[in-house]
């Protein structure tokens, strides 16, 4: 079969190829007719040829799929190289994305083709009469192709993860670069101070000009919402006494911490209130149920009371009837007694 090793055949099978092409050409006309009566018993005499045609069609498809998988894996290796290479340069991003899209499409197409192949194989495995070897062979081919496709997909996933990691590393580096550039922009603002204060480190304010600049930037500092403004302070006091730096830092940090605590406390309080509201609403429901129960009880008791009242009435009225009946009974007894005695 020419199908199996489409990409790794070193033997010259061109004669076989030509022969099969000829038979294919011969069978391509009846194969077109035989596409319809797959399910029924069409022409029995065309069965062997249709079987061969089906088989070679199957193998042709399998070979196409194998070739496509190979191409996809090649593109994937190129993509992996590109992804590994992109360290600081952002140029291959677009190519990488294009390649990614193309590879994804190819993989999904291959998936579909494989499914088709399997369906075709199943269909003409059931209908036409072919040997068991051919069935096992076709099954093996399909499995092999599936495995290859799975490996390719896995590699694709690995390459994508590698790419995302690289992008993250790139982002960190860019952040670092941008931070350093912003710090450098703040530095020349205060840079005059070390030049002036180097000769006399104990003097607090060497230049009124520098004092003015530092004071204007320090006006921001004593604000009550001092949170993360330790960096300008650090710049200023770096050339001054060193022990001040941790103090400023701790002051600001403690303020920030206190604010965070307050915020989280308020948040917790909000939670507690919500829980409280939920509980109270649930209990409200329970209270409504209790109320209904009590109303039912009231209705029942009232009904029972009316029944008993009626009963009482009937009993008291019945006595009158009872007396009458009694009299009648006594009358009968008298008559009876008279008869006997």
């Amino acid at each position, binding site marked *: 079969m020419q199908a199996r090793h489409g990409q790794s055949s070193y033997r010259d099978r061109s004669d076989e190829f030509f022969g099969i092409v000829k038979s294919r050409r011969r069978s391509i006309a009846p194969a077109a007719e035989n596409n319809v009566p797959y399910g029924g018993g069409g022409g029995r005499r065309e069965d062997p040829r249709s079987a061969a045609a089906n088989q070679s069609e199957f193998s042709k498809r399998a070979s196409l799929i194998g070739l496509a998988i190979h191409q996809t894996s090649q593109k994937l290796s190129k993509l992996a190289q590109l992804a590994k290479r992109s360290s600081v340069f952002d140029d291959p991003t677009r190519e990488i994305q294009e390649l990614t899209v193309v590879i994804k499409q190819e993989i999904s197409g291959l998936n579909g083709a494989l499914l088709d192949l399997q369906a075709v194989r199943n269909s003409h495995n059931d209908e036409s009469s072919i040997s068991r070897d051919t069935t096992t062979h076709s099954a093996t081919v399909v499995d092999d192709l599936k495995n290859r496709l799975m490996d390719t997909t896995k590699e694709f996933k690995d390459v994508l993860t590698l790419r995302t990691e690289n992008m993250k590393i790139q982002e960190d580096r860019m952040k670092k670069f941008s931070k350093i550039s912003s710090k450098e922009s703040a530095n020349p603002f205060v840079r005059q101070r070390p030049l002036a204060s180097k000769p006399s480190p104990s003097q607090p304010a060497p230049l009124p000009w520098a004092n003015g600049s530092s004071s204007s930037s320090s006006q921001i500092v004593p604000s009550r919402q001092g949170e993360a403004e330790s960096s300008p302070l650090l710049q200023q006091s770096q050339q001054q006494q060193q022990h001040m730096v941790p103090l400023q830092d701790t002051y600001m940090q403690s303020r920030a911490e206190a604010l965070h605590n307050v915020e989280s406390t308020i948040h917790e309080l909000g939670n507690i209130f919500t829980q409280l509201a939920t509980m109270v609403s649930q209990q409200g429901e329970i209270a409504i149920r209790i109320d209904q129960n*009590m109303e039912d009880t009231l209705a029942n008791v009232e009904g029972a009371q009316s029944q008993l009242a009626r009963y009482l009435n009937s009993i008291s009225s019945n006595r009158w009837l009872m007396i009458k009946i009694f009299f009648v009974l006594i009358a009968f007894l008298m008559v009876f007694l008279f008869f006997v005695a």
Partner: protein
Amino acid sequence: MKITALLVLKAAPETSDPVILANASDVSHFGYFQRSSVKEFVVFVGRTVASRTPPSQRQSVQHEEYKVHAYNRNGLCAVGFMDDHYPVRSAFSLLNQVIDEYQKSFGEAWRSAKEDSAQPWPYLAEALTKFQDPAEADKLLKIQRELDETKIILHKTIDSVLARGEKLDSLVEKSSDLSMASQMFYKQAKKTNSCCTIL
């Protein structure tokens, strides 16, 4: 949690010692004979610390059993003598307030002061007494404290609501039992009412 003294000084740029602009000390817990020496000590240490505090910086120095906090803003320096328990943050917010108040009430007049001013500044004295409790000075502390109290109260509330829930559950049970019983009662009454023809 005690403030022993509060000072406002003018931090001179060079050489000369800072000039005291306002001074308030609470030396009541020292013996009578020690009071003046304590005051001197306060003045001296305050001057030293203020002279060593560069402008727009905060500083805390440990001196014997006092923590001296200093805050220098534009040459106007506020120094506070607190004990170790006083939280640092509220100390600095207190100094902030003092400086703001001083600037509001005296404007820029202090810049020309050349010698220690002897007039007492009443605000400082009452600040000293008011802010013995750090929560007063530091709004954050006050808020945090109130929030904690509120949280405790809410916890208690939730507990009582849970108890209420339990009671309500038992009430529901009892009321449903009652309703059942009354229903049986009604049925019985109806039954005895229906078959009364015997008697």
